[in-house]
């Protein structure tokens, strides 16, 4: 046994006390001394927030609250899980693991009940050794130092050990994707496939093709994955994304429907399906998916007031305002003191009261909505669009126009959303005006960026940054401006040396752009430039 459990901090999460005791005894017999226990996910998450564990054994089935998968999701979301920690999910049956699998939220392994101490320790040791082997690479990835991770990975690959070849090829390919080096990624996936048709490598080729904007090829790979492994759930998400990008909304919806039928537990997938179906007026599908998302949201970090208002909207469209009222009541109960949720509730109520032939109450609610929405800054864009529509339907064209103006300027580099704005205004008969606005916003964005770049070229770096910061204040969710700020900061540091403040600032910009969903091409480029800078700094210090 190469692992010494004495020094490992272990957390056992299991609702069944006899089982918890049994697992603890197994660990104690193997010399483990630092074993904490939790009977449910919330207790476990609290403990993880207080101290960093090395090994977490978590039962999937935790009784009434969050299940193990939801706990893992939340732990990752809240960054409570150290990069090199081992997370083993204990399941009652082997087939559970497939249905659970969700993108980015996989445990290191699944262990099926019942298991004895020898099995448990064998599993821990196997993964511990694996983690040790990849530890330096993982650490570099965590520090966002992709170039260094690549060097480390290539060094290990050069050992040409057949036992570690394919996991290294996998990591190398994933690193290449992170670095924007898609050709190298495709090379390594193909190397694996030349040996054996493995679904993860085929999947990788699909993702590469997707990023290379060869959507048809990506779809081909994804379909090949599904014909060999219909339970590879994340493939459905990629396939839906690909269809959506091609404007094939019916196909995207169909593929997600298939996925939720096989694996109904993934909340993000249910939300995606609900939104797609909602937009294409497929009300029955939207209703079922919103309901599922609400149910799953009960114990999930991805719980959203948008699912409630979406469901209310669907009921309203179905001429069932009574049900819609119930949903809004539930929304208010679940999201107290949440201005965004309140705005969502009010927006739906304006329509609901109108449908109930109560124009006075509707008007009163609308007035309340108008007042409150003016006070809340940074509305989520889908909500802002709904509010704009409500303004318009209530004859307040000026307020509607103002909101839409802001939305267009802020999101002019988000083609999907601009299309949503277009289709809304089409139903209201304002197509021409919208197109003028869109063109104007496009031009304005180009002018702002040109001006920023010009100032930078003239050596007026501080002015350039000030200018872009001002512009970013006006359109805080515009990815292009934020990314250009990062670029200027990085170029400046390349020429004039690094400062801590500038590093932090550019890192902030990159994070912000990532959260806003900036394009893969631009993000990887800037991330790599940034990593080169920080690497140079590490070498010098």
């Amino acid at each position, binding site marked *: 046994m190469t692992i010494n459990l004495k020094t490992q901090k272990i957390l056992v999460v299991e609702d*069944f006390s*006899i*089982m918890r005791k*049994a697992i603890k*005894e*197994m660990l104690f017999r193997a010399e483990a001394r630092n074993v904490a226990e939790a009977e449910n996910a919330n207790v476990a998450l609290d403990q993880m927030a207080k101290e960093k564990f090395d090994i977490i054994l978590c039962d999937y*089935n935790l009784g009434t609250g969050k299940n193990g998968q939801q706990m893992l999701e939340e732990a990752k979301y809240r960054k409570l899980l150290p990069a090199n920690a081992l997370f083993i999910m204990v399941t*009652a*049956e*082997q*087939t559970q*693991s*497939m*249905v659970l699998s969700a993108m980015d939220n996989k445990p290191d392994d*699944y262990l*099926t*009940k*019942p*298991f*004895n*101490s*020898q*099995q448990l320790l*064998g*599993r821990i040791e*196997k993964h511990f050794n694996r983690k040790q082997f990849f530890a330096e690479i993982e650490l570099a990835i965590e520090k966002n130092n992709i170039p260094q991770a690549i060097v480390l990975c290539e060094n290990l690959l050069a050992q040409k050990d*057949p*036992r570690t070849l*394919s996991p290294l090829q996998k990591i190398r390919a994933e690193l290449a994707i992170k670095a924007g080096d898609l050709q190298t990624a495709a090379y390594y996936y193909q190397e694996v496939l030349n040996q*054996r*048709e*493995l*679904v*993860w490598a085929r999947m990788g080729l699909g993702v590469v093709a997707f990023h290379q904007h060869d959507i048809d090829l990506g779809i081909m790979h994804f379909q090949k994955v599904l014909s*060999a*492994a*219909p*339970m*590879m759930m994340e493939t459905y998400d990629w396939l839906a994304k690909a269809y959506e990008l091609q404007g094939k909304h019916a196909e995207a919806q169909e593929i997600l429907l298939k996925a939720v039928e*096989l694996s109904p537990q993934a909340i993000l997938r249910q939300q995606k399906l609900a939104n797609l179906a909602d937009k294409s007026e497929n009300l029955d599908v939207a209703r079922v998916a919103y309901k599922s998302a609400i149910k799953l949201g009960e114990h999930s970090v991805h719980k959203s007031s948008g699912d409630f208002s979406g469901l209310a909207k669907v009921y309203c469209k179905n001429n069932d305002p009574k049900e819609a009222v119930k949903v809004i009541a539930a929304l208010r109960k679940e999201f107290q003191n949440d201005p965004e949720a309140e705005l969502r509730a009010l927006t739906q109520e304006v329509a609901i009261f109108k449908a109930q032939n109560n124009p006075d109450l509707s008007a009163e609610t609308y007035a309340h909505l108008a007042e409150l929405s003016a006070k809340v800054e940074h509305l989520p864009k889908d909500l802002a669009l709904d509010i704009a529509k409500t303004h318009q339907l209530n004859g307040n064209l000026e307020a509607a126009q103002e909101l839409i103006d802001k939305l267009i300027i802020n999101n002019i580099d988000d083609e999907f959303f601009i299309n949503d704005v277009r289709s809304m205004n089409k139903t209201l008969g304002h197509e021409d005006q919208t197109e003028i606005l869109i063109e104007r916003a496009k031009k304005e964005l180009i002018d702002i960026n040109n001006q920023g770049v010009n100032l930078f070229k003239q050596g007026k770096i501080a002015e350039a940054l000030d200018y872009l910061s001002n512009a970013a204040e006006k359109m805080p969710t515009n990815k292009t401006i934020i990314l250009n700020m990062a670029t200027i900061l990085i170029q400046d540091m390349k020429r004039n040396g690094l400062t801590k403040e500038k590093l932090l600032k550019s890192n902030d910009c990159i994070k912000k752009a990532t959260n806003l969903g900036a394009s893969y091409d631009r993000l990887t480029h800037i991330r790599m430039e940034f990593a080169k800078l920080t690497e140079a700094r590490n070498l010098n210090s």
Partner: protein
Amino acid sequence: MKTTNGIDFPSILAFSVHEMKNSLSTISELIQNFAKQNALQHPKELAQLEFEANRMNNSLMQLLILYKIDEAKFCPDIDEHLVSEILNEVLAQQNTLFTINGIDLEINCPEDLLCYCDFNLISNALSTVINNAQRYSKGRILLSAAREDDYVCFHIEDDGNGFPGHFLTQGSADNNTVNLNTGSTGLGLFFVATIAGMHINGAKKGMIKLSNDSCMGGAKFSLLLP
């Protein structure tokens, strides 16, 4: 998926299995504790207990996986694995019984042998077969693996009396010929043959072979994965 009576059978099945697995876990843990304390007083009874617990667990697992296969909700999760790690897992699952029964298990496998398979599925399948082999063995079992042409072959050989004749005539290359009517061994073999057949490489499919060519004079079970 609800029946006319409003019973959501898959959920009930999942819930019941979860309960049973918890009970089985507790039983297994208790047996292990007893084995340490009183192995000398009641070795036979303990061995029987452990064997039956294993068998219940194997039957449950087979039931569920075959049900999912039938519902088209199952596919093996195939990746590259070290064969020695698979054999270690099998040993870990069966070790209590070996110890109590005083069976001498020999493992023979090249250290760097790799195999494309579903790790959990194949180790469970081999455990099922070994659990049965112990009943018929007189004291020695050999678990080995090696590359043979385009297949990785796992062999389980014992020193018992060998398979009865009607087993040998039916359990070979074609998985569908495995006869379910030969009791629990039959179901186990049917299960192993079914999942072997789900391991595919190009035109080649996994399979099982039964013979009495054991180097120790008893039965020989072989699982071939492409």
